[in-house]
């Protein structure tokens, strides 16, 4: 489906939902309500929303340590996500996972992943399950450019290509592998070029350009659903905040960050793109942001009102203790 006014507004709203959810999460961290660390997706929103716009509810998504955006774009309830960050029993993972392992299986979001490249094998495995069951469900695996250095990236792509599995590999290349610029540790500039080694299409797109990501993802998802195998998409993007909380960001200049925030913000760019087409007016834009702010406030209230876990909860969910074998 090509972008139209209605779909664009929905996508645009989702971008704001991600941006403001994370800004609120950062604020709640400074207030002490959200503990642990956060890896924010601010600046990369166009990638998750453009890819997930092509997915059905029963398609699978696997993420990274930076997956609030993937979850929201795939339809995870925001209030439960906020409650998870607050460490409350109503959280998506009942306060067992936190930001880095957030998952919502009711939406086939099989989890953020604290291990770089950790989702690539499993995401290829969900695609194998689709193949065995003869279902046309597609799997999408998001990962960073750092993952392209790890073995599971290479093994996952090999299996995906070998068996022509219905999976889309989406590399969010934000230029930094935690504190190290990619150019210092990589031997090929574009991760998309690595697709050639696995005989699958590799596409590099501007990750700040919603329309570009939407187009590439649409082709890749359709190709996977037709049973023609995987695609590797590289979305060149940028994270506005540090790698995680407390990052001193000594590895990049303030000017560089300002330049991206000012001129390469995917929300600003998409807003302008929609306004050019008369698909979004200023009033409507404000209304969307107000609506999202209300949703965020609601999610915070939900989290605040939710109970923290009890000490006995620590022992549950290790194994399914209800299960008994019988002949």
């Amino acid at each position, binding site marked *: 489906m090509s972008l139209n006014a209605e779909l664009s507004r929905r996508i645009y709203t989702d971008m704001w939902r991600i941006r403001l959810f994370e800004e609120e999460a950062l604020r709640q961290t400074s207030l002490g309500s959200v503990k642990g660390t956060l890896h924010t997706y601010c600046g990369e929103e166009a990638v998750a929303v453009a890819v997930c716009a092509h997915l059905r509810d029963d398609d699978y998504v696997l993420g990274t340590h930076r997956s609030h955006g993937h979850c929201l774009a795939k339809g995870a309830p925001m209030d439960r996500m906020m409650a998870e960050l607050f460490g409350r029993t109503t959280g998506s993972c009942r306060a067992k996972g936190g930001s880095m392992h957030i998952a919502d*299986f009711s939406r086939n979001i099989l989890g953020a992943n604290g291990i770089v490249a950790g989702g690539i*094998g499993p*995401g290829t495995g969900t695609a*194998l399950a689709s193949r065995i069951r003869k279902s046309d469900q597609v799997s999408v695996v998001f990962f960073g450019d750092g993952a392209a250095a790890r073995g*599971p990236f290479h093994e996952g792509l*090999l299996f995906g290509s070998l*068996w022509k599995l219905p999976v889309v590999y989406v590399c969010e290349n934000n230029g930094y592998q935690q504190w190290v610029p990619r150019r210092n540790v990589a031997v090929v500039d574009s991760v998309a070029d690595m697709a050639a080694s696995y005989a699958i299409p590799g596409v590099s797109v501007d990750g700040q350009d919603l329309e570009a990501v939407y187009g590439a993802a649409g082709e890749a998802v359709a190709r996977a659903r037709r049973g023609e195998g995987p695609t590797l998409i590289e979305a060149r993007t940028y994270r506005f905040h540090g790698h995680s909380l407390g990052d001193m960001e000594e590895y990049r200049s303030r000017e560089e960050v300002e330049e991206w925030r000012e001129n390469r913000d995917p929300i600003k760019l998409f807003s302008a793109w929609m306004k050019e087409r008369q698909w979004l007016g200023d009033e409507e834009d404000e209304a969307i942001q107000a609506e999202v702010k209300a949703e965020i406030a609601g999610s915070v209230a939900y989290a605040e009102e939710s109970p923290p876990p009890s000490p006995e909860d620590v022992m549950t969910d290790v*194994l399914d203790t209800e299960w008994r074998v019988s002949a």
Partner: protein
Amino acid sequence: MRTIALRDALREALHEEMARDDSVFVIGEDVIAHGGPYTVTQGIADKWPDRIFETPIAEAGIVGLGVGAALAGMRPVVEIMYVDFITCAMDEVVNQAAKMRYMTGGQASVPIVIRLPCGPARLVAAQHSQIMESWFMHVPGLQVAAPSTPYDAKGLMKTAIRSPDPVAFFEYKALYVSEGGVPKEDYVIPFGKADIKREGEDATVVAIGGMVPRALEAGIALEDEGYDIEVVDPRTLAPLDMDTICDSVRRTGRAVVCEMDSSFAGSGAEIAAALAERCFHDLRAPIVRVGSPHVPMPFAEELVNVTVPDAGAVCGAVRKVMA
């Protein structure tokens, strides 16, 4: 009851579970050609060509795909050719398979069986002879099975495949051809139920996996010395049936714990520690552990013979607790 080899019992379990449940499938290296090096997966490709996947040599990928398929509701049975090679996929086992249910607050179920042929056989030295059960016991969320007889192997494999949680299934290579009675009818062996392989009054010998036949051999040898040992086989190390082990030790008052792997921080260490905690006042002698010295598996037979504990080592340990 008919008598079959352990590898045939495992093969039967796989065939029966694949017939019973469409979501069971097999994935691993060389699993179609020859049915794997141990012939356990023989015949599956003929019956279910779409449910067996012969892979490139990429263990992290194999286990990773298994985890994902399991998350999506399938029941993969993964073969890792030698347990030594699972080190190439430890992230997939430990960080992905084992923790997924917990990290997701109970949303995830990862019903994967990882078959791990293990132990010394045919002098293949340090990188093809390890056992490593204790590595997996130490990870919350993993179940660990280590059968010693064809009967246990089949019953535990069927349970492993039906289990909603991941199982590290240790198959002692040296036991693949050992024979034993296996009924034709469907049966399962629940996890966490130890089996008394020999009854006796004087000392309890807890023996794991490949040490069970050696402990039984020791039992016969020790009869001549007037010692009547009880041999307890935990069958699964996680969950671990300490109740049965403790009951036995309370009766005999003496305990020997045998494993084939290095006893330093090994599976037997957990059993010995739990016995000390729970049965200290029932013990009439200090617990003795039997295991390999803390060295990689050597190559030369002379060196292997002084590394891997045999029935003689079990006898020596029993004499120690009886003294």
